[in-house]
């Protein structure tokens, strides 16, 4: 396909190259079009190329803009065609006047186009921007090129105020550390007050944990992260969104209403100039009530994220949970279906272990690796309230959601090859 129109003897490849030179932004797609072979093959190649472009490269705003331009051109043309003869402009008498008139017409046309585009952006304001930004960040995050790269986020977890929970007097109020990502692997290092630290990692060979006393053990599939955030689609690894940045972005796309604006005074100085997305939860997904993201639009990477849970409802949920517990004679159990709170507290969908198969509560390790004593934790966290149906999170992390979780990208970073692998004992 794409035979040169003027001469079939012309070098086709040269023709394509010169055609490309007209447009410096040609992509790999156009230059790879099939130019030899039967018509059927060339047609298939060209049409699949066109469908891929429409499906993967175009956004709805690009399509709308194209239609707006076409209809505006139609409007201008028909208004000219339909102008009654008596109102038709009087022919200009001199070339100078004709030039001036042409200039005025061009100016009017430019103004109309600007007006149409302005109206379009007023009609599709920030929601479209936020959606596009999320799309791009998600693409960059899941791209085979970017996921090979190493990413590190500084993590700060602000736990709920002591008054709002049943935690013991030794419980910390803040945890900090780093969250490292490389491909499908993740590693979270957290410490309280910079002294006691714990590590939790998902490597290609399996998940493992290092407790604050240095004990390292493999985690089985039932030992999940605390279910602070959950991707209701279950697409992310284990359905827990916090394990992966792409899962967090998908969660925002699916269950939150997001608006975007250029980061200004409301943002930390180092983030100003990036795009600031503020998302509010609207669906019954487990997760923070509000998520803020700062995205570098040049690289489409998430520079920072702030996830906030409202503490008061948590306290209320705790109260409700305690009431339910006392009604059931103090036995902790998962809530019955349909009894979940309407926003954000739905139990995990279908992937909760069956009751008879549920791992034991507490900090018991998997079979065959049972240590002699309960590993120390970062404070005396009580069991999670049953209302939330958090599955056992036998690690060091508190099972209930924090008040705030802040992520800040640190770069450049390069991890050692065995950074995510379980240390050999």
């Amino acid at each position: 396909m794409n035979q040169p129109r003027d001469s079939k003897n012309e070098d086709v490849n040269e023709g394509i190259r010169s055609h490309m030179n007209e447009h410096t932004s040609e992509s790999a797609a156009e230059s790879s079009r099939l130019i030899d072979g039967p018509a059927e093959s060339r047609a298939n190649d060209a049409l699949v190329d066109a469908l891929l472009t429409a499906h993967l490269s175009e956004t709805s705003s690009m399509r709308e803009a194209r239609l707006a331009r076409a209809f505006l051109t139609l409007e201008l043309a028909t208004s000219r065609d339909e102008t009654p003869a008596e109102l038709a402009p009087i022919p200009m008498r001199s070339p100078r006047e004709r030039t001036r008139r042409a200039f005025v017409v061009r100016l009017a046309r430019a103004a109309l186009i600007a007006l149409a585009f302005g109206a379009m952006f007023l009609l599709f304001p920030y929601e479209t921007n936020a959606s596009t930004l999320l799309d791009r960040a998600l693409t960059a995050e899941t791209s085979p090129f970017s996921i090979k790269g190493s990413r590190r986020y500084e993590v700060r977890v602000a736990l709920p105020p002591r008054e709002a929970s049943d935690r013991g007097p030794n419980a910390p109020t803040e945890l900090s550390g780093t969250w490292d990502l490389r491909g499908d692997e993740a590693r979270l290092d957290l410490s309280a007050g910079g002294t006691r630290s714990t590590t939790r990692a998902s490597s290609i060979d399996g998940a493992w944990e290092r407790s604050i006393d240095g004990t390292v053990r493999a985690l089985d599939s039932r030992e999940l992260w605390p279910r602070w955030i959950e991707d209701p689609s279950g697409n992310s690894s284990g359905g827990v969104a916090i394990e992966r940045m792409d899962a967090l972005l998908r969660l925002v796309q699916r269950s939150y209403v997001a608006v975007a604006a250029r980061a200004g005074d409301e943002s930390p100085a180092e983030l100003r100039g990036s795009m600031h997305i503020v998302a509010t939860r609207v669906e019954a997904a487990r997760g923070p009530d509000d998520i803020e993201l700062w995205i570098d639009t040049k690289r489409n990477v998430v520079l920072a994220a702030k996830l906030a849970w409202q503490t008061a409802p948590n306290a209320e949920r705790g109260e409700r949970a305690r009431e339910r517990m006392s009604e059931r004679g103090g036995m902790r159990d998962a809530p019955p279906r349909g009894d979940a709170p309407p926003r954000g507290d739905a139990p995990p969908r279908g992937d909760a272990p069956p009751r008879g198969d549920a791992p034991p509560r507490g900090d018991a390790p998997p079979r065959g690796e049972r240590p002699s004593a309960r590993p120390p934790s970062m404070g005396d966290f009580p069991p999670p309230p049953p209302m939330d149906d958090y599955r056992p999170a036998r690690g060091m992390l508190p099972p209930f959601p924090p008040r705030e979780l802040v992520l800040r990208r640190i770069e450049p970073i390069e991890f050692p090859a065995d950074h995510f692998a379980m240390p050999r004992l």
Partner: protein
Amino acid sequence: MHDPTARELFEVLVREHADGLMASIRAGAGRAHADDVFQETVLVAWRRLADYDRTRPFGPWLRGIARLVALDLAGRHRRMQIADPATFDCIERNIAQFERARGDGPEPAMSFRERLVALDDCLSKLPAMYAEVVQATYRETKQLAEVAHAIGGNEELVKKRLQRARAMLAECLRGKAAFADENDGGTEVCA
């Protein structure tokens, strides 16, 4: 109650067939002038609306105009590449089939966009080495050299992989009856 004018009805029809029209233009006339051809097609279609036979589908009529507009534009832009008639026929046959396709969902697809979802399933079946270049090329709109650098190969390798990937996708779409079967009533020039 506001009665829609001919213009409003025309715009609804154009909007409904815009995706198929754009796919046809991109496939037959390339991307560089696709927007110009689209715009001119809408204008010509409006002016020739009296010629439209209402007993026949609007999409093929619109795409037929686009083909003539593209030919005309190619006459004015020497470097513009355009498909030969046989390829154009095959493109049209496949688009018409695509518009008849039921789609992958539980309900029959009602629009071109809904039918495009079938492509997702085909994309998910691509081997990783092909999926990688397709994602980089189309979703990330990377330049040829960038993709080549990223996969550690040269530009020819990228082109070959893209061509192979598109051939696999076409085969997959044919398997879903979204593309016409080569042996199923194809025109002589196309078969």
